[in-house]
């Protein structure tokens, strides 16, 4: 008797960046993976079983089989040029069947990978995706001929509308018939005589075409270039045969303008200003948060909780001395529902402030991503970033940092160069505020009124950013990475995709932030009821009031900020300060240490020494800049 669900057919979903693999994976498995119009967003490999209904399982005899789909990162080819390629290669190695997704508007690029995959000699299917875009651009593709030339079956699709995907699923289900794997019905790519000649010498040691080809391509740069050149010529011939291109170009007027040095830069400033200042600062952090905080949490929720808790335990408004010693039950009551109470303040912060801000940030980011704007921004800033030891690609983690510095630090992985990685990480840790902090700070700054406070804050950060980058670029050895990037077409974002992406990412963020928030709040309220908090405030008073010229209560924000950056910013909202004090406080807090989670990721991705160097220098930078700002007379009223 066959064991249940033990036999697995591995299906690898492979394609160039941005061809729609994630959308297809999503459709076939029902599992959401990040879909975006930015090349290289799939860093982690996700795998899931093909979702089949019970009837389908019965009809196809799938009871004994698992059809496992693996979504690989987008690559232009498989060799060892970067981590994504190595990951894709491993996933091809274990695949029984390859689905190669190609985009109909970039065939001359995509078919290179297709040819390489075909050369590997595994059963394979081609999905010709984004056919709608080809139609709009009046690009005609002779699919039949392409299929003949390649010797492979092709399914035409518009993944985003589900077109062609049912057919794809059907084809996959057919992989199992009468309880037997029927992989033989899938065609195997043919290898051309020219390329075969290049790899024959490897067949002795390598039993399969897969191994022989990869061994040949990786044997030397020269060998690789030769094979690539042959393959490229084959692809160009093929494209000439099957694609009839009309005069319509893929470039739209907007696409052209966004890459124009002058107009593009102005557009970039306007877009980022609208996103950060108008949308996050004024709308989300101002209007939405005020509404939630005042009319939901402060008016109803918190009084209710305090009332409920104080029926059982005493809650003290302004505890002094060591409450835990003197009156333990009041201490617990205060920890639950006092000023820093776990049930009051923490919940208000999490759902009244953090949630709208995080949703707002990820919504904006999704719009930027799905429209295809980010790669254009990368082109515009590449020149500047290369002066700071990075390249244009680094703009992605830097902007992501505006969501969560910790997550962004993880994505520095997509940079292939060590020096660039370290610099990006340092700049993230030192100068980039994360979404909640960003939101609260934008809110505080726009409350002061006028654009001057915002300009001072943004200006200081820019100066620190440029100075730190240039210094690190000089000090650290090595070159910055190469910048070669193909630019996806501009697309009108699909709202459904924007919403699901926003919700999924915000949820991941909040799931991670919630426990950390409660721990941070527990620590602080513990410090409060034991009297340690006021002690810390006292001893840091000289620094805060002498050096930064700020009210001593700000110390609490900084302590909170060390635990979690975003948590720190909230504390600032309740401290009365003058306009220029607020600007100083916001700037210092932004520059101040990255939170514990970020430091942990830094240690993991780099090493303990670099992480500590970044952490300690942020103390110096924050206090130094704060001291200077506090002493410059600012014209704000």
């Amino acid at each position, binding site marked *: 008797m066959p064991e249940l669900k033990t036999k697995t057919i591995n299906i690898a979903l492979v394609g160039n960046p941005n061809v729609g693999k994630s959308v297809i994976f999503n459709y076939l498995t029902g599992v959401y993976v990040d879909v975006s119009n930015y090349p290289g967003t799939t860093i982690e490999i996700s795998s899931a079983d093909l979702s089949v209904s019970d009837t389908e399982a019965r009809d196809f005899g799938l009871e004994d089989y698992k059809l496992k789909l693996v979504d690989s990162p987008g690559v232009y080819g498989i060799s060892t040029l970067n981590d994504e390629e190595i990951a894709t290669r491993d996933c091809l190695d274990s695949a029984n069947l390859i689905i190669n997704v190609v985009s109909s508007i970039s065939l001359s690029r995509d078919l290179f990978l297709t040819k390489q995959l075909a050369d590997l000699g595994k059963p394979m299917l081609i999905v010709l995706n984004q056919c709608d875009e080809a139609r709009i651009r009046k690009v005609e593709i002779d699919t039949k001929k392409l299929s003949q030339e390649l010797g492979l079956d092709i399914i035409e699709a518009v993944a985003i509308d589900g077109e062609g995907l049912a057919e794809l699923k059907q084809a996959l289900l057919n992989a199992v018939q009468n309880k037997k794997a029927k992989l033989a019905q899938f065609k195997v790519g043919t290898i051309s005589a020219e390329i075969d000649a290049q790899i024959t010498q490897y067949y002795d040691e390598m039993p399969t075409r897969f191994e022989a080809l990869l061994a040949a391509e990786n044997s030397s740069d020269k060998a690789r270039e030769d094979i690539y050149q042959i393959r490229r010529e084959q692809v160009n011939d093929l494209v000439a045969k099957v694609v009839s291109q009309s005069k319509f170009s893929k470039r739209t007027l907007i696409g052209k303008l966004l890459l124009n040095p002058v107009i593009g830069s102005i557009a970039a400033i306007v877009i980022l200003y609208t996103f950060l200042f108008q949308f996050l600062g004024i709308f989300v952090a101002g209007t939405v948060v005020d509404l939630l905080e005042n009319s939901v949490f402060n008016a109803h929720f918190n009084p209710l909780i305090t009332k409920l808790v104080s029926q059982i335990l005493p809650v003290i408004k302004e505890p002094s001395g060591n409450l835990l010693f003197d009156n333990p039950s009041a201490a617990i009551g205060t920890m639950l529902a006092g000023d820093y109470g776990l049930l009051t303040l923490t919940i208000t912060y999490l759902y009244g402030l953090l949630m709208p801000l995080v949703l707002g940030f990820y919504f904006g980011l999704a719009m930027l991503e799905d429209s295809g704007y980010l790669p254009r921004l990368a082109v515009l800033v590449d020149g500047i970033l290369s002066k700071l030891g990075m390249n244009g690609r680094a703009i992605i983690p830097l902007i992501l940092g505006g969501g969560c510095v910790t997550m962004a630090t993880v994505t520095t992985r997509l940079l292939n160069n060590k020096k660039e990685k370290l610099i990006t990480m340092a700049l993230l840790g030192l100068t980039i505020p994360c979404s909640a902090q960003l939101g609260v700070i934008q809110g505080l700054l726009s409350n002061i009124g006028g654009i001057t406070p915002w300009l001072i804050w943004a200006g200081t950060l820019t100066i620190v950013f440029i100075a730190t980058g240039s210094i690190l670029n000089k000090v650290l050895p090595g070159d910055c990475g190469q910048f070669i*990037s193909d*630019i996806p077409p501009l697309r009108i974002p699909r709202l459904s995709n924007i919403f699901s992406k926003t919700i999924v990412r915000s949820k991941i963020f909040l799931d991670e932030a919630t426990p950390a928030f409660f721990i941070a709040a527990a620590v602080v309220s513990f410090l409060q009821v034991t009297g340690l908090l006021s002690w810390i405030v006292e001893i840091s008073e000289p620094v805060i009031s002498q050096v930064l010229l700020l009210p001593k209560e700000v110390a609490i924000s900084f302590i909170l900020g060390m635990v979690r950056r975003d948590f720190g910013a909230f504390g600032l909202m309740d401290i009365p300060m003058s306009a220029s004090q607020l600007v100083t406080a916001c700037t210092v807090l932004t520059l101040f240490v990255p939170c514990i989670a970020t430091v942990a990721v830094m240690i993991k991705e780099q090493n303990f020494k670099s992480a500590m160097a970044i952490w300690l220098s942020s103390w110096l930078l924050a206090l130094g800049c704060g001291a200077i700002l506090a002493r410059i007379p600012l014209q704000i009223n």
Partner: protein
Amino acid sequence: MLLNQAKTGQCLKILKLPSELKAKLIRIGICEGDQVCCASKIPAGPVVLLKDLQEIAIGDKQAAQIKVEICQS
């Protein structure tokens, strides 16, 4: 001339690719002998090339290693 000296609108023929970039560029679709169009040049920044339906950006330092010539079209 070198690719980083290209100006917007020029039609160029790729003469020589440096070996560090060759494999990468061939895969994306640019090889020696190809005709491309310079779609944009950011001062001290990347060159954006137009090849078939594709836009490809190449950083200033990398473009400085690529030999091209202007072709009349």
